[in-house]
């Protein structure tokens, strides 16, 4: 546990320092007030720390809810498609049609049907994440070697035991890999979704700061999105390490 805390700390310091380094370089090179200095921004962050915390919390809750819901629905569906190739052949063409669609374009439709509140925003993130996870889980389950299946049959396992002891552990890395990719896309889409009909969320904070031409506040919001992304990725890494320990 101490080792993983140290690794988290090193990773965090390295990430923040390189982020600040690139930012400082851009600040010096651009010499434009649209890119404020990291020090001014950090001062601003300290000044509005409670407000920033509130916006970050709102965005985090939306992302976490969407990630959890997408995983809960996508994992059984992906396993189902892998176990029943007939249904896979039937549903895969639809998945392939839906997958490349820019889901953010549907935000107005989602808002129309599901209201302006959190539900439509979470639904947008959910729709972005779920397809990625379904396809990843299905492919992961399809790649399980036949020999592993033979071992399970050898021990007279039933379908549920196959899922519990073989499929779920085997596809766990696939689930995490798809979540890693999804987090990046979800954060980018969240910025878009939070520009509409909300007063809380980092997307809203960044856009409203931009409108006010308060660039240190805008960059404070951007920095918080980066921090949020870092923390989500670290959480998934920790989950992976934990799964190898148990």
């Amino acid at each position, binding site marked *: 546990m101490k080792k993983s805390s140290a690794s988290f700390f090193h990773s965090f310091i390295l990430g923040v320092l390189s982020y600040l380094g690139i930012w400082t370089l851009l600040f010096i090179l651009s010499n434009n007030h649209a890119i404020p200095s990291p020090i001014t921004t950090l001062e601003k962050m300290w000044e509005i720390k409670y407000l920033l915390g509130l916006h970050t919390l709102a965005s985090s809750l939306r992302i976490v809810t969407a990630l959890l819901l997408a995983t809960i629905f996508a994992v059984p569906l992906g396993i189902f498609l892998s176990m029943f190739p007939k249904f896979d052949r039937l549903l895969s063409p639809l998945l392939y049609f839906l997958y490349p669609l820019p889901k953010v374009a549907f935000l107005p439709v989602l808002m129309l049907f599901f209201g302006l509140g959190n539900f439509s925003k979470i639904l947008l993130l959910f729709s972005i994440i779920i397809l990625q996870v379904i396809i990843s889980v299905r492919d992961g389950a399809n790649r399980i070697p036949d020999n592993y299946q*033979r071992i399970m049959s050898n021990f007279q396992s039933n379908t549920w035991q196959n899922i519990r*002891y073989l499929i779920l552990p085997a596809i766990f890395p696939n689930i995490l890999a798809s979540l890693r990719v999804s987090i990046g896309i979800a954060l980018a889409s969240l910025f878009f979704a939070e520009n509409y009909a909300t007063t809380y969320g980092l997307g809203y904070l960044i856009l409203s700061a931009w409108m006010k031409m308060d660039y240190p506040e805008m960059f404070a919001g951007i920095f918080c999105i980066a921090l949020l992304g870092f923390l989500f990725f670290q959480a998934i890494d920790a989950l992976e390490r934990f*799964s190898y320990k148990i």
Partner: protein
Amino acid sequence: MGIIIKDLNFIYEQNQLFKMTNFHFEDNTIYTLVGPSGIGKSTLLDLLTGVKHPHSGDILYQNIHKSEILTIFQNNHLFPWLTVSEALALPLKINNVSKKQINSRVMGLLKTFRLETFAHKRPHALSGGQLQRVAIAQGLTLNPKLLLLDEPTSSLDQESKEEIQDHLINEQRKRNNTMIIVTHDIEEAAYLGQEIILVTNKQLKKIVNPTFGEKNRRQSLDFYAFCIQLRKQVRQK
């Protein structure tokens, strides 16, 4: 009489692999199955476990239920995410054995197969011999009445091979089960098999091992004379 094969006929990719009248495997015996590559040794194991089905004929089991048959595969297929003790516990969990019993059986097997120090290691951290010991121990967790082993010591060094072979003989004596072991190694067939089964001309031929049970067989001339005789028989066919 443990397993009776009646008029078995099996064709694989248009090649007739087996066409035999009657054959039987006794209870509480170690059989080794030898014959040239591709003759159908592993297929016979698949027929015995029901993974493959004969085109005609029957395989009848007496005193053995299908759930009491277990196979240990050629290249041990331990799940990479399970530690040694978790791998040993897996068959027991699947068969709803209580936690207390699982712990005691796993501890017993770890001790018997000298795996205690590797209990929390995953397959990638084990040597070939250790992996094979885990695979065999895993196969024995459920105390199967019929244990089928497909090349259990292939790709192992001589020392590990002999260790595994002695483990198998000891376990069979303790458990009084039947083992059918496919091997391409004549010395192994002669050492492990109470009866050696030669797969030949789509039939099975039994050869009684006169040296089985003798002490220090690996140092005995009789044992090597029998190996030479056996090798000749395999080559003749």
